[in-house]
């Protein structure tokens, strides 16, 4: 049966990719979380009958742009933190005593910190695998957690506020030039518009 085959492949792929890389799993499922949460936000607008059609044409692109800011900033920041931490461990910049001794024994201390050097490619890597893997996984998980905190709780809200403020200014400028051209939001004051934007951008629902 094709669908059961597909599910079987999915399970195997998940096991192979994330079994040894919990840090990657946290980054990728984090991105998936943001995508699904954004989809929920957009569909909440699309399927809401109480929102007039002309307002939807204004709100939907805004929701999509908001989602793009959330997803891109989360991925860029979290994966950069995770990749840097991985590189520090795989090139031997960040080690434990047994790993350092292993590198000394292999006479590769001059290669420590080289971009192309990777401890996992050494011929006798299996001798240190038991010590190296849990250390690398732990560092990866800590780095991706710190990256997520910085991204979700500091950078994204600030970027989103800046974006909202830019959008407000653009809309207000259009209002001043020609109020006839402004389809939506119609008939509201500048203060009301700023309040609405502030409420909308005070942190999206994250799943």
């Amino acid at each position, binding site marked *: 049966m094709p669908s059961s085959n597909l599910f079987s492949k999915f399970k195997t792929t998940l096991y192979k990719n994330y079994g040894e890389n919990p840090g990657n799993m*946290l980054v990728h499922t984090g991105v998936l979380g943001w995508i699904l949460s954004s989809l929920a936000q957009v569909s909440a607008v699309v399927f809401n009958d109480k929102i007039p059609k002309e307002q939807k044409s204004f709100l939907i692109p805004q929701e999509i742009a908001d989602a793009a800011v959330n997803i891109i900033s989360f991925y860029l920041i979290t994966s950069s933190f995770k990749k840097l931490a991985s590189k520090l461990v795989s090139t031997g910049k960040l080690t*434990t005593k047994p790993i350092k001794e292993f590198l000394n024994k292999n006479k590769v201390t001059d290669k420590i*910190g080289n*971009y192309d050097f990777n401890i996992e490619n050494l011929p006798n890597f299996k001798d240190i695998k038991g010590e190296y893997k*849990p250390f690398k996984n732990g560092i990866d998980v800590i780095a991706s957690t710190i990256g997520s905190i910085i991204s979700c709780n500091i950078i994204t809200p600030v970027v989103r506020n800046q974006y909202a403020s830019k959008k407000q200014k653009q809309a207000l400028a259009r209002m001043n030039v020609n109020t006839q051209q402004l389809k939506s939001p119609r008939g509201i004051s500048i203060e009301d518009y700023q309040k609405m934007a502030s409420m909308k951008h*005070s942190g999206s629902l994250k799943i």
Partner: protein
Amino acid sequence: MSSLRTYAIKTYQNFLNILPNAEYSNSSGIKLVHDAGEKISSAEQRLILGATALMSQPFIDAHNRNVDENTRRVSVARTIAKIVAGTFTGFFIRKGCIKAIKAFSQLPGPKVPKYKTIFTPKDITKINSDEFIQYRNAMGTIVALIVMMFTNFAIDAPLTKFLTNKLVKKQEDKNAVK
């Protein structure tokens, strides 16, 4: 394209050169790192994110000078409510789904019903390995994310509204006493 890659690698290498070499020798520190790799699943990460969000996001909203004080107060209340509701459902649904996946990803055997192996990948011989635990976390998280697409509306949104109203009312009562 390749020259761009060479330039990127060179920049990365220069950055690596700036960083000092570090060797962990503290055994409790190493244990903490190992535990983080083994025990922090997406559920624990969501809890950490929620706790740190409570320390930063209301502060950012409270200092938004683009809006008047009243709007700022409501916006802070709504942010706190969103974080509490999102963290509560996010943590428990992830935990629950990971637990459920554990129950339905057993090793096939004569005494094990087929439905209990529905999430077990092919050719698995060991289910107590770290790799398999991470697989269960990943699968549980993916299932949880799908579940949360619905609970986002069914639980998070009404809970956020309820908590926001409570927090705003508390603030108003406090102001009335003053």
